[in-house]
């Protein structure tokens, strides 16, 4: 099984009622790469996945190629892609083993070959004891393992996952996320993973495509997207961002809480953006910024504080200090100036 490279060019999607689900999009996905489409519901990520799968046709002028071969006119059943759905979509009238072997049965493989391949996949997903179970006897996590095994059984050219973990509870989600990550690395298969969960995207993606209202907001590695967000939208969508309004002046950035030592502040900057991990508590008397505690949450290993400065949304600061924090208490803050973004 050679991993396939996928290219979308000018792929837009307008639905019959006139809604533009996807602005024309150009995208290259490398062979063996795991690409995550990330965004809130309605951002066009699922539509893009469905165009790649062959479940939707792109608007006139768009094309999808697999390894340089145009597959735009091919329906999904001719594209040989594996799909995993949020709702699992397992066949209720078939057993676990029959579900996994379905794609091979369709391809008229000999019965012994099917049995062997199904056995391999059951083992790979560690669900061998479930082979003869009915689908309604399985838990959600087991169902999604069966769905993964089914999608992989016929050695697809690419694996397309549409919010595969969304229906699971948090603990199981973490376990399966690790498993999927290991699986994708091991198989080296080209995979496209759609999610609205940024933690999932960061953990799984070689690259992440952040989408907003049918448009690309940013595309890059998880590190790029987190550390160098291209827009406010991306900055606010990925992780937590602090925002402080003010005016640049000589020596820094004047805010309601004091002079932020941000020498590199662009002339037009009216807001400073920085991550909680680049923000630290400091001695109130000497710190450049000061604010009052709005809320404090003890998390065990650390305390998360919401510190309000002026009329801005409270800043998030985390500290390992072991003392108790009182609401209304004045605290000093310092920010790593090299990490401040203008956006």
């Amino acid at each position, binding site marked *: 099984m050679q991993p396939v490279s996928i290219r979308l060019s000018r792929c837009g999607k307008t639905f019959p009622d006139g809604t533009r689900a996807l602005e024309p999009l150009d995208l290259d996905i490398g062979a063996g790469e795991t690409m995550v489409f990330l965004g809130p519901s309605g951002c066009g990520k699922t539509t893009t996945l469905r165009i790649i*799968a062959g479940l939707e046709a792109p608007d006139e002028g768009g094309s999808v190629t697999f390894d340089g071969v145009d597959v735009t006119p091919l329906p999904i059943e001719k594209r040989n892609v594996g*799909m995993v759905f949020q709702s699992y979509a397992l066949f209720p009238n078939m057993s676990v083993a029959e579900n996994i072997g*379905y794609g091979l049965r369709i391809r008229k493989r000999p019965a012994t070959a099917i049995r062997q391949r199904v056995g391999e996949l059951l083992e790979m997903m560690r669900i061998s004891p479930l082979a003869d179970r009915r689908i309604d006897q399985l838990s959600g996590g087991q169902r999604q393992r069966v769905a993964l095994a089914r999608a992989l059984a016929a050695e697809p050219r690419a694996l397309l996952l549409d919010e595969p973990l969304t229906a699971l509870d948090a603990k199981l989600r973490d376990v399966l996320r690790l498993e999927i990550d290991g699986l994708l690395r091991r198989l080296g298969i080209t995979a496209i993973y759609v999610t609205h969960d940024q933690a999932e995207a960061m953990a799984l993606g070689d690259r992440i495509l952040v989408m907003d209202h049918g448009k690309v907001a940013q595309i890059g590695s998880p590190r790029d997207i987190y550390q160098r967000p291209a827009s406010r939208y991306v900055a606010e969508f990925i992780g937590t961002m602090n925002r402080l309004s003010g005016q640049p002046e000589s020596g820094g950035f004047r805010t309601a809480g004091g002079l932020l030592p941000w020498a590199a502040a662009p002339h037009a900057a009216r807001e400073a953006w920085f991550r909680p991990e680049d923000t630290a508590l400091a001695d109130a008397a000497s710190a450049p910024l000061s604010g009052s505690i709005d809320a404090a949450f003890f998390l065990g290993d650390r305390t998360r504080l919401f510190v309000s400065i002026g009329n801005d949304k409270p800043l998030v600061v985390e500290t390992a200090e072991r003392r108790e924090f009182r609401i209304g208490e004045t605290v000093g803050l310092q920010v790593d100036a090299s990490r401040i973004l203008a956006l």
Partner: protein
Amino acid sequence: MALRRENSLLIALLLPAGIFFCAFFLLPLVRLFLIGGEGKLGYAAYAAIVTDRNYFRSLVSTLVLAAGTTVITLIISGIAGVFLQRHSFRGNAVLVSMLTFPLAFPGVVIGFMVIMLAGRQGLIGDITLALTGEKLVFAYSMAGLLMGYVYFSIPRTILTVMAAAEKLDPKLEEAARSLGASPWRVVLDVIIPGLKPAFLAAGAICFATAVGAFGTAFTLATRINVLPMVIYTEFTLQANMAMAAALSFVLGAVTWIVLAIARQFAGGTVAAAG
């Protein structure tokens, strides 16, 4: 002690329903069975339905006709029901309500409509006469009856099928297609299994109605030999009450058995058995 009190209270509350059941169901049925054995043949009348070639043939043709009606109706309702549920177009709602329109027609009206279509003065006859020089008339045969039965069975099944089609998960079809299934395989492996409970439930009603239908057969009469017609003939023309009763009982019993078998397959979803 308290439990026994509660039980006797429950029995007392069930009494009216029990009396009603006995008076209007059990008694007539027992009476019917007894009358069936009061004729010249005695209880051998019940065997006559198998031994007498005419009776046996009419029983077989009744069952074949009902089975044929059920199969054809399910195929038509299945295709139309899924299509109507999946596609919204102008006039969709009107079309659905038109399909359920014949629900209220008595069998006589259905028979009349079959004659208008395929009878001696019928539309099909006129067209075939103009085209081939020969008049195609099949209203007064089993074919005509089959057509009429299918016509009045569709409204009884299509709404059930549509309700079930609405519950089909489109993701299942997409999953099957992603695994390489052609549209035909999707129908076979996903849609038909998904609609199976609805098919069995609607099919049971369809079958039972077709077995017992009388008005349409009566209107088309001449060359038709279905059991309800035979019962009518025995009862009114031959005044053979015993035979009519025996045939009625057997007709009911056979239908009930067929539906019980269907229920076995459906795993208890056929509400209409019996």
